[in-house]
């Protein structure tokens, strides 16, 4: 069915442990349905092999990293989806309410803008600002802000790479 080497169980298991530990240390929760969760993580590993980056398994990746930065897991839409729907688009990350069983996990609407809308957003972003001594950078995944000449190599809060930052002010 596909030409890519499927990761073995051990690989999926150690990735699961790492992602779970990272999530919990940052106050996030993975879906407690371990089978479903591991299936998604296995798909992220497949995408890493296929594209060279861990694109969201529930969205269509273009194969070009620059166009897909917003959907590298954890994606830019996880946090707003956790606020509005108690889960990320895939159901990989869930809120405390779903974890405790107070809410039921379900498939949620897509909030990623269409390709045309994303291009418009990019071209409207070139405006820069005022007399600040340093620019302010925002992590598009967790919202962390810092004022420095360039974004950090790795977000100190959620650990994503510097290409997930955008100039905020």
């Amino acid at each position, binding site marked *: 069915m596909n030409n890519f080497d499927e990761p073995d169980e051990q690989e999926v298991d150690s990735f699961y442990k790492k992602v779970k530990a990272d999530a919990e240390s940052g106050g996030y929760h993975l879906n407690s349905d371990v089978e479903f969760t591991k299936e998604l993580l296995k*798909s992220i590993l497949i995408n890493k092999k296929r594209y060279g980056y861990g694109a969201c398994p*529930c*969205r*269509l990746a273009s194969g070009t990293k620059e166009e897909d930065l917003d959907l590298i897991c954890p994606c830019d839409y996880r946090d707003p989806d956790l606020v509005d729907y108690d889960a990320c688009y*895939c159901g990989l990350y869930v809120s405390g309410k779903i974890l405790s069983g107070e809410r039921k996990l379900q498939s949620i609407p897509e909030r990623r803008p269409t390709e045309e809308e994303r291009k418009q957003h990019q071209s409207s972003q070139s405006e820069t600002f005022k007399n600040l001594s340093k620019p302010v950078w925002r992590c598009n995944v967790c919202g962390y802000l810092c004022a420095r000449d360039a974004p950090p190599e790795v977000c100190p809060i959620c650990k994503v790479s510097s290409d997930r930052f955008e100039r905020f002010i």
Partner: protein
Amino acid sequence: MKMQHIEGQNKGKVVLFALSTCGWCKKTRELIEDLDADYEYVYVDLTKGEEREEVVEMVKKWNPQLSFPTLVINDDKTIVGFKEEEIKEALG
């Protein structure tokens, strides 16, 4: 474009656009098969080049957001996402 055909009872023309890596797409396939509906599906993430362009245009026609799973029934009704009750109602 090549569709995979899964045999079942004829409940109208059922076409599923899915991703091979997506958990909700997998649940949708399982539900359609539990309901024993005859259907065709394509894993859009496994298509390339012209075939990809062709299938993307087709999905956008039914679902401009190009999200998955997109289920099209009788070239008319579109169900986007794993909407269990809606799918059961349409194919039950």
